[in-house]
Every structure is written in C-alpha cells, then in structure tokens.
C-alpha cells in the first residue's frame, strides 16, 4: 500500500496532540487516503456532513463516541437532512425509540459545532463555496452540484469521512480535488430533442437517470443543454445522476463553469460519445416509474432535493389558489422556509393544504402514512429510492404535471412532451 506523506500537523493530530476525537478523525482520514491512493492531505475550507442521518445504532454510536472524545469541527460545517422534521414533529408516524435515537444523533452533530441547516441542498444557503475552493461535502446530489455547478472541489465523501474531514480540516488529495480527474471521459450529445422537451423541467431528472446508468462513476460532458439552464434544473439532473449511478461531477457544455467548450471539458482528448434521442429519454423516464399512469393517486411529493424559493413560488403559481384533492407534500430547507415565510409564500401553500416538510425528506422519514395509490413525484432521486425506503409505487412527471395531478387526484400528463416530433 503506498504511504501517505503527512504534515507535522497531521502527525501531531494522529498522535493525539489535538485530543482524542481529532486522533480518531485523523486515523479515518489517513486510512481513507490509503484506500484511494492519495499521497498527501490538503486543507478544506468547509464541510457538509451527512453522518447526522440515522441509519441504525452504528451511526449513533459513532457520533456519541466522537462527542465523548471532545470532537469540535475546525471548519464551517453545514448539516444534511436528518431522520426527523424538527419543525413539524407531530407528523412523525414511526416508532418512538427510532425517533429518540435519531434525535440524539442529530443533537450530537450540533454539539460538535455543526450548523443545524438540515438540508440536502446546502448550495441553496446564503454562504456556499466559491469556484476552485476545496471542501469536503457529503450527500450525493450536493457533491455533484458542488463540483459541476459551483466549480468548487469535493471528492465523493460519505458518512464518517465527512465529519472526520470537518474535525481535522484535512482530506486526501485525490479524485475531484485534482485538475486531471475533473476532465470529461464520456460525452452525451442530445440529438433532435424537441424544443418543448428542452424547455420542460421533466427533461432533467430523466436525463440524469440516463447519464447515471451509462456513466457509472465517470465524469461525463453533456452537449445540447440550453445555455440558460437554471440551477433548479441542474439540481434535478445532479440528484438523478447520483442515484442511478455514482456520478460526482458532470460538465454541461456552455452551462457549467469548467465547460465553456467541449474541448475545455475533455482537455482536448478524444472521448467516446453517446447520442441521447427522445426514444432513449422515454425509456429512461419509464424506468423511473413503478406504477401505471392510469391509477388514482395516493399522494404527490415534490422538493427532492429540497425545494428552492423559486420552486416554492412556482408551486403557489401552479396551484392558482386551488386546493389539491390528494395530499401534496413539499420538502425544503428551514433557511428557505424562513425566506418563504417572509414573502408570504409558505402561508399561500399552507392555505392550499400543502404539507411543507423541513429538515428531512418524505422518502426518508415515516411521514406519508398509509397512502392509497401510487405517489407522483418530479424527482428522479425520490422515484429511485422511495419504493424500497417507504414502500410506495411511483409515477413521474414535471412539477406542473405533479400539481395538476394533485388537483385532479389522478395522473394528468402531457404525453406529447415525450413524442418524437
């Protein structure tokens, strides 16, 4: 195994000079450096930690072990979603001991000095990493967004290493921290995709699903997306590509900051190309679904990843003051909710009976209860994970189709969106 070249500070931390928790954290960082064959560690300026989400006793015991050992984060650290909606605790329908463990785990990370942001979309917070900045982010969708859209640099950090990086302020210098690993090795070229599909938000999670399937863990470049593609749409692409595959970065030529041209994205190398046609997109959409579109709906869930303020505003606009006939859930971060409250957006949603979830997500936490019928979503990630996590069947549609369907209580979709001409 190649050895890692450690700084004096790294060695001091390893030897317990910064306390027991820092030594545990540094052991994890150094061992990971070995796993990914990094030859040294570098500083990070910030971290986003996903370890706060309860998956069982091991994660809780890890957090409390660190806390008992005196853990404090060294860099500004935001927290991902937890298992509980702390602002709306009355909606929780799971078991009490699980809630109590999950709460202890969330509290432990706050006590370590992490900010209780409880969001899977830390890029929607006021302070976010700048271009070229090295950070340690966990949460698969956020990792892709950070690298691709912000042009900041994070490897694909997971639970445990995220908080270890936050405590030590150090990460292995490998993967997407390095220039050469950020170049595209595969191109997806959109060909003859009609304007109306390019203009629909439904395209992005479906394209993400297709890209994740084909690209695996590689860095792809996408050619053919509109130059004004919004962050909300890129977010949907990120989340889907990190669910069906292990994509941690993509380039959208003419859209994302490291891809002004295809040559810039690939470094000038010749790379294989996959042509994306409407037919391929249709089958990628069908793959997201586990229920036939004819059924009466049980519920609708949007906001995975957490809805932005503009998505919440769009939701109000699409509802047009009407009340859905099945429950419409929307997940968002508490910082976004605070902005929505100031603008009267959340009041408008609540008046329409929309259930706003913060701090967690409807596919993670037992919130939906018994739903009679499939659940419609505009999220590729939700479609991917909800069937196994909460045992529902899923129908996919754009945000607009989700709202129209929620109003009608059954799937309302414009199938012409996916036709060839």
């Amino acid at each position, binding site marked *: 195994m190649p050895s890692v070249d450690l700084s004096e500070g790294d060695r001091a931390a390893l030897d317990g000079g910064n306390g027991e928790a820092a030594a545990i954290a540094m*052991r994890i960082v150094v*061992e990971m450096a070995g*796993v990914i064959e990094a030859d040294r560690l570098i500083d990070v300026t910030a971290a986003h930690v996903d370890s706060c989400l309860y998956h*069982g006793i*091991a994660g809780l015991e890890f957090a409390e072990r660190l806390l008992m050992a005196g853990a404090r984060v060294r860099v500004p650290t935001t927290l991902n979603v937890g298992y509980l909606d702390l602002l709306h605790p009355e909606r929780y329908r799971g078991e009490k001991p699980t809630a109590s463990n999950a709460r202890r785990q969330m509290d432990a990370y706050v006590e370590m000095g992490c900010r209780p942001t409880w969001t899977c979309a830390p890029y929607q917070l006021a302070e976010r990493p700048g271009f070229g900045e090295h950070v340690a982010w966990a949460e698969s969708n956020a990792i892709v967004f950070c690298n691709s859209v912000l042009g900041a640099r994070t490897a694909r950090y*997971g639970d445990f290493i995220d908080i270890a990086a936050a405590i030590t302020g150090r990460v292995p210098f490998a993967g997407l921290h390095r220039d050469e690993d950020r170049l595209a090795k595969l191109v997806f070229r959109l060909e003859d995709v009609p304007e109306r599909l390019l203009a629909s938000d439904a395209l992005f999670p479906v394209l993400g699903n297709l890209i994740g399937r084909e690209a*695996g863990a590689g860095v792809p470049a996408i050619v053919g997306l509109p130059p004004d593609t919004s962050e909300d749409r890129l977010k949907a692409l990120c989340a889907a590509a990190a669910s069906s595959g292990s994509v941690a970065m993509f380039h959208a030529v003419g859209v994302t900051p490291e891809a002004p041209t295809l040559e810039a994205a690939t470094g000038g190398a010749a790379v294989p190309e996959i042509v994306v046609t409407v037919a391929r997109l249709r089958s990628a959409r069908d793959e997201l679904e586990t229920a036939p579109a004819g059924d009466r709906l049980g519920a609708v869930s949007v906001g995975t990843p957490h809805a932005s303020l503009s998505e919440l505003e769009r939701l109000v606009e699409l509802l047009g003051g009407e009340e859905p006939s099945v429950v419409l859930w929307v997940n968002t971060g508490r910082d976004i909710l605070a902005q929505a409250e100031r603008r009267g957006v959340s009041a408008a949603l609540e008046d329409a009976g929309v259930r706003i979830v913060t701090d967690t997500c409807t596919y993670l936490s037992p919130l939906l209860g018994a739903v009679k019928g499939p659940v419609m979503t505009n999220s590729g990630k939700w479609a*991917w994970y909800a069937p196994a996590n909460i045992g529902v069947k899923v129908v996919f549609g754009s945000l607009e189709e989700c709202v129209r369907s929620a109003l009608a209580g059954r799937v309302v979709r414009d199938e012409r969106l996916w036709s060839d001409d």
Partner: protein
Amino acid sequence: MTEARTLVAGEARGPALILVEPLSFWGGVDPATGDIVDVHHPQRDANVAGRVLVMPSGRGSSSSSSVLAECIRAGTAPAAIVLGEADPILALGAIVARELYGRTIPVVVAPAPAAVRTGDPLNVRASPDAVRID
C-alpha cells in the same frame, strides 16, 4: 485486467454472491436482515449476510458507509466484499466498524474470480500487501 488490492484487510470465507449490477447499500440493503431491497436491482430479495459479495462496483448514495457499518454491527454484513473497482464509501463503513466494534470485514478490489458461481465457497485473505481469493 483489474489489479488486486486490499482496501480493508482481513480474512473471511463464505458462499459467493455474484451481483450482475452494482448495489447501493443505502436504500438497497435492509441492515436488519441483509436482504437486497432495491427494486431496480435484478437480484432483489437475495441476502448478503455471510456471503462473499462480488460486484462490479458500489453505487449511489454516500450513506452506504453507515449502512454497511450497521450491517457489520448487527451481524447481517457480507463476510467479505470483492469489488471490480475501488469504492471508498464501502471501505469506510468497514473501517469505522473496526474503530467502533473491533471487528470488520475484508474489502478488496480484484477481478471477479473466474468460473465461480453464486453459492460456491470462497475464501478471501487480504493483507495490506496482497489479496488471495480461492
């Protein structure tokens, strides 16, 4: 050809479970039972506990480290994991289980052992410098 490499050292034996597609432990494996619950996975309902899990790569969520650590704690983890390409997220789950509970499972990168089928007994010996699968 994949070069064999130890990600997490250890020794284990068990019947092989050869996965035809990558599996995300988070959302894909129930840590209470070791069952594969990912509806998109062709081998849904297979059980990973005590198996030598052979798969092309890890996939998806960065929470898989937690789920693997929990499987190791709960005794529902595979006996060993043999990957076609390195997956630091799974390695991390095994590293933290060792830190917390003093026990772990070997995680290695190695070419899928030729002519081995699901159910065949496999023995994995992974030291920092060498991997042996037979």
